[in-house]
């Protein structure tokens, strides 16, 4: 009996505040925009009983989804979000792996400190970390001042409000998500395996590619998912660093909702975004469960 209550409380909470809201989004994505409060129609009227429910369903349609396929803004935004997310994930991996590797190879007594140095920025406000780059990357920013001073460039570079700035912002803010799982995998790695590979005639580089990389694969996979999935729907980074030229679906959804106040279209955008994300989310969850079971 107690056990049932213990299970039921978090279960019901998540059902009510996580799962049910998705069905509401789905329902509103099938509704029409209206000049009313709430600004969509139809609304479910249960007081009329069965007739009301039938009436409600007959008014739902796929108009908003048709609209999304007709206006190529949405297509472009979806494609460019996926593209930015893929490239940014690869960049984060390239930057993060050597750091995680260096941490795993550092003297044992340094490691807790290095760990904390990686985690500390993660605890600091995301918004502030993105904001810090606005001052660095702008035309009169610190980076341009520095490059002009050293004489590497003679005219300031335009970086802020371009996709380059978005990539820098993503790599910077999501780096801890990449480093930590890879570090965890590398830390567990048995050093004698690498020694064995080297004894058997591998060069250090070969041993790295043939032993270290495959054994750190669960960490790489987890890190890539943790970066890629949220980046696809990212809003803060493109809106502060990307300028008007960067099209990302999270930003489109935000503007559709807050500026155009078109809730049904915003919901339809969310539904399709979710459909795009279902596959990576399920894969991520499988990976996590497999990891958890392997540990048990």
């Amino acid at each position: 009996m107690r056990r049932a209550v213990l299970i039921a409380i978090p279960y019901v909470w998540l059902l009510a505040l996580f799962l049910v809201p998705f069905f509401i989004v789905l329902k509103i994505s099938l509704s029409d925009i209206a000049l009313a409060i709430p600004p969509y129609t139809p609304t479910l009227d249960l007081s009329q009983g069965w007739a009301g429910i039938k009436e409600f369903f007959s008014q739902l349609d796929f108009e908003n989804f048709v609209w999304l396929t007709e206006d190529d803004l949405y297509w472009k935004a979806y494609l460019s979000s996926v593209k930015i997310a893929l490239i940014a994930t690869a960049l984060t991996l390239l930057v993060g792996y050597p750091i995680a590797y260096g941490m795993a190879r550092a003297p044992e007594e340094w490691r807790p400190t290095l760990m904390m140095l990686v985690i500390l920025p993660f605890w600091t406000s995301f918004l502030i970390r993105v904001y810090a780059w606005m001052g660095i990357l702008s035309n009169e920013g610190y980076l341009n001042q520095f490059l002009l001073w050293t004489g590497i460039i003679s005219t300031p570079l335009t970086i802020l409000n371009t996709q380059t700035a978005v990539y820098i912002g993503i790599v910077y803010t999501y780096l801890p998500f990449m480093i930590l799982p890879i570090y965890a995998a590398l830390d567990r790695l048995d050093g004698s395996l690498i020694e064995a590979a080297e004894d058997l005639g591998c060069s250090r580089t070969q041993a790295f590619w043939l032993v270290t990389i495959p054994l750190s694969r669960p960490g790489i996979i987890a890190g890539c998912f943790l970066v890629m999935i949220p980046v696809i729907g990212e809003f803060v980074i493109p809106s502060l660093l990307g300028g008007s030229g960067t099209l990302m679906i999270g930003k489109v959804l935000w503007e559709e909702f807050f500026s155009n106040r078109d809730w049904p279209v915003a919901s339809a955008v969310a539904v399709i975004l979710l459909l795009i994300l279902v596959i990576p989310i399920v894969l991520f969850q499988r990976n996590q469960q497999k990891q958890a079971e392997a540990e048990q």
Partner: protein
Amino acid sequence: MNRLSWFNTVSLTLGFAFLYIPMVILIIFSFNESKLVTVWAGFSTKWYGELMQNQAFLDAAWVTVRVAVFSSTLATILGTMAAYVMVRGGRFFGRTLFSGMIYAPLVMPEVITGLSLLLLFIGIGLDRGILTIVLAHTTFSMCYVSVVVSSRLVTFDRSLEEAALDLGCSPAQAFRLVTLPIIAPAVISGWLLAFTLSLDDLVIASFTSGPSATTLPIKIFSAVRLGVSPEINALSTIMIAVVTVGVITASLVSKRAMVRQRQEEQAAARTE
């Protein structure tokens, strides 16, 4: 362990420089005299003074702190329950769905979570304000708490719980007297994580807050959209300082707790 090779030294140095230089620059320029943020014009703390005069920021900070305290506490209770159910609950109907709902919010784009919760609150006619932000933050941060707590539950020796049950504890007593003290460091770090996630959140709060409750990130975001300002630099510096002190204290406390726990376990092993 052998010394660091030059490659590892370089990658660690560059990596940490990349992580920290932006924040160091931000902190330095918060003490800049000039209104022009990119030109150094001498040391001054005047922007901190102006910040303390800014009633809108102070109000927003107070709302943010209240939301964070309530939501992280609720999230810790719910998340610990969820972790316990996941690790010790055995099989029950809908377990896969349950674990899906625990892991999915970790990677769900915030715009979707925010939008869906807003539509729920409007659907059930709940006025948007502090309560709705608390509910929203609790929902996503309880998942983080449950991941942190369940990783601790997985690694600890279950025979301790069984011993307590054998010695006549009820399951609730065993949980309170044995399990909870052992997982306490994980529960505390879960609470801290939930607290910072709530302090930090812009997107979900923007969707679920009403005109009566503006949080600090919402305020910062609307100011930052107009460009870099020395006042925001000062505010950021204060937030970075608070977080740094908090994280270092928390890690020292948990390290001491871990050392003590290990000593006690060793002592117990010797007396057996």
